[in-house]
C-alpha cells in the first residue's frame, strides 16, 4: 500500500461506480418524469372562444389548460388610459401595444403572478384587477402596479380565427 500507483483494480472500481451511477440515474428518471404533465393533459392545449356576445367594458373568463383566461373588451377610455402610462412607472415595463395587439381586446391568463390566485375584475387602485389573496393591484392592461406580484399577468399565445372567435393556445 506504499505505492500510490493507479492499478487495474482502481480502474475497475471507478468504472463500476460510473456504470452503477448511470444505471441508478436511468432507473430514477422515469420515477421522477412520471409526475410531469401526461399526454392526455398536453392534448388539451388549445381552446376556441366565441366573443361575439361580449360588450365593451365587459370581461369573460374561460378555462384553458385548467386555468382561467380573462378576455376583456376594453372601452376607448380604458385603451387611452392603458396606453398613456409611462414605462418608468411600471414594475415590469411592458407597452400596452405589446400586450394587446388589437387594443379593444385584452386576452390574458387570469392568474396572479404572485401565488396563482384569480384576481378580481374592476377592483384595486389602478382600475384593473385586484388579487384578494395577497393584495396585488393590476392596471387595465393587466400590468402589476402595486403589491407582491413580481410580473404582469401573462399573455397566452392566441389568435383571432375570425372577427368573433379567439383561439387560445
Amino acid at each position, binding site marked *: 500500500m506504499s505505492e500510490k500507483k493507479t492499478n487495474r483494480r482502481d480502474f475497475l472500481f471507478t468504472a463500476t461506480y460510473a456504470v452503477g451511477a448511470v444505471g441508478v440515474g436511468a432507473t430514477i428518471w422515469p420515477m*421522477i418524469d412520471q*409526475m*410531469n*404533465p*401526461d399526454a392526455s*393533459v398536453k392534448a388539451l392545449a388549445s381552446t376556441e372562444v366565441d366573443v361575439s356576445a361580449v360588450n365593451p367594458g365587459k370581461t369573460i*373568463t374561460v*378555462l384553458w*389548460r*385548467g*386555468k*382561467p383566461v380573462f378576455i376583456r373588451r376594453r372601452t376607448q377610455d380604458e385603451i387611452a388610459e392603458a396606453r398613456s402610462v409611462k414605462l418608468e412607472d411600471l414594475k415590469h415595463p411592458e407597452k400596452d401595444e405589446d400586450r394587446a395587439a388589437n387594443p379593444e381586446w385584452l386576452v390574458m391568463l387570469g392568474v396572479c403572478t*404572485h*401565488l*396563482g*390566485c*384569480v*384576481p*378580481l375584475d374592476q377592483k384595486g387602485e389602478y382600475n384593473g384587477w385586484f*388579487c*384578494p*389573496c*395577497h*393584495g396585488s393591484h393590476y392596471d387595465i392592461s393587466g400590468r402589476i402596479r402595486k*403589491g*407582491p*406580484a*413580481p410580473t404582469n399577468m401573462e399573455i397566452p399565445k392566441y389568435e383571432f380565427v375570425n372577427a368573433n372567435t379567439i383561439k387560445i393556445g
Partner: protein
Amino acid sequence: MSDHEYTPKSKFGKWFNDRLPLLTLANHLTDYPTPKNLNYWWTFGGILTFCLITQIVTGLVLAMHYIAHADMAFDSVEHIMRDVNYGWLIRYIHANGASMFFLAVYIHIFRSLFYGSYKAPREIIWIIGIIIYLLMMAAAFLGYVLPWGQMSFWGATVITNLFSAIPLVGEGIVTWLWGGYSVDNPTLTRFFTLHYLIPFLILGLVVLHIWALHVPGNNNPVGIDIKKPSKDTVPFHPYIVIKDGFALLMFMIVFAFFVFYTPNILGHADNYIEANPLVTPAHIVPEWYLLPFYAILRSVPDKLLGVVAMLSAILILAALPWLDTSKIRSAVFRPLYRQFYWILVADVLILGYVGAMPAEGLYLLVARVATAYYFLHFLVILPVLGWKEKTLPIPLSITEPILGGSPNLATAKNKESLNK
C-alpha cells in the same frame, strides 16, 4: 439506560429473548430512570404519540371510503359525513385531530425552548423533532387538499406556487408538482398518496426521536445533568406512565370538546363549497397552525424573499442549539432569557393573529415588526444573552435544594464551575 443485565423469568421468555431481545427493550422502557421533577409540560411527548396513532387509525378508515378523483372527492367526503356508519365521527376526529396534534406540538416545542432541552447533548433529538414538525406541516397541507373544497384547491394553488419563486427552474418544478398546468386531478391523486405516506415516515422518525432521547435521558425543569439511576430519578413505569396518562385524559377532554361541540370552528366555511378553478375565495387563509409563517410570507413585499423568509423562520429552529450560546439550560436560572422567552411567545401569537387578518394598513406594519423581531430573537438576542446574562446559581442535584431548604447557595454551584 439501566446498566443491570435483564433476564426474563420464564423459560420461554429466556429462550425468546436470547433470539430477539424484545423483552430487554420492554424492560428498558419500564425501568427507564426519569427525573422525578418532570412537570406536566413533559407529558406532551406521550400526548403527541397518541395524536399520531389517532391520525393513522382514523386516516386508514377514511381511506376506505374516500375517492381521490377531482370529480368525486368532494362528494365522497359528503358521503362519509352522511352515509358511512359513524363516518361523521371518524372524519371530525381526523380533521380536529390535526389541530390537536399541532396544539400539542407547539406546547412541546415551547417547553423545549423554555427549559433549553435542545442544548448539548440533545441536539440530534431536537433536529429530528424539527424534521418531524416539517413533515407534520406537509401532511397537514396535503390532507387539507383532499376534500377538494374551495380552500383545498386555492390553498394547494398558493402553496405549490411558492416553488415558482425559485429562479430559472421554479415554473418547471410547479408544473412537475401539479402534473399539469394547474392544480387538477393528477395533483389530487399524488397528494393523496403522499398524505398516506408521510405519517409512516413520522412514525419512523418518532422511534429515532425516542431512541436519541434515551441516550442522555430526559432534560428536566432544573435543567441540570443528573445521575441515573439515583435519588433524582424514578422508574418510567408506573410513575411517568400514570402522570402521562392523566395528562392525556385531560387533553382528550379538550379534543372531545372540539369533535362533539364545535367540529367546524377550526375550519373554513369555504371548504364546504366544491373546488372552482375560476373563482378564488375573497379571503384565503391557511389553518391556524400555519398562520405565523403565513404572516411572515406576506410581510415581505418581494415574492422570492418572502418565501425565503418564511422557510428561514422554520429552518432557523434547527440551528438553535448553536445560536443559543448559554451553558445554562433552564430558563428558571436565566432571568433575562425568561423575559425574552415570553416576548417571543407573544411575538409568535401576534404573527398568528395578523396572519389571519388582511395584509394591509396597520396589520401589515405589525406583521413586519413582529417578523423582524422573530429573527432578531434567534440571530442577535440569543447569541448575545449567552455571554452577557448573569445567571442564577444552579443546584447540584434535583433533591439537594429541597432537602436542604432551598435556595441553598452552599449546595449550589455557579456558572464558572459548570464550564469546567
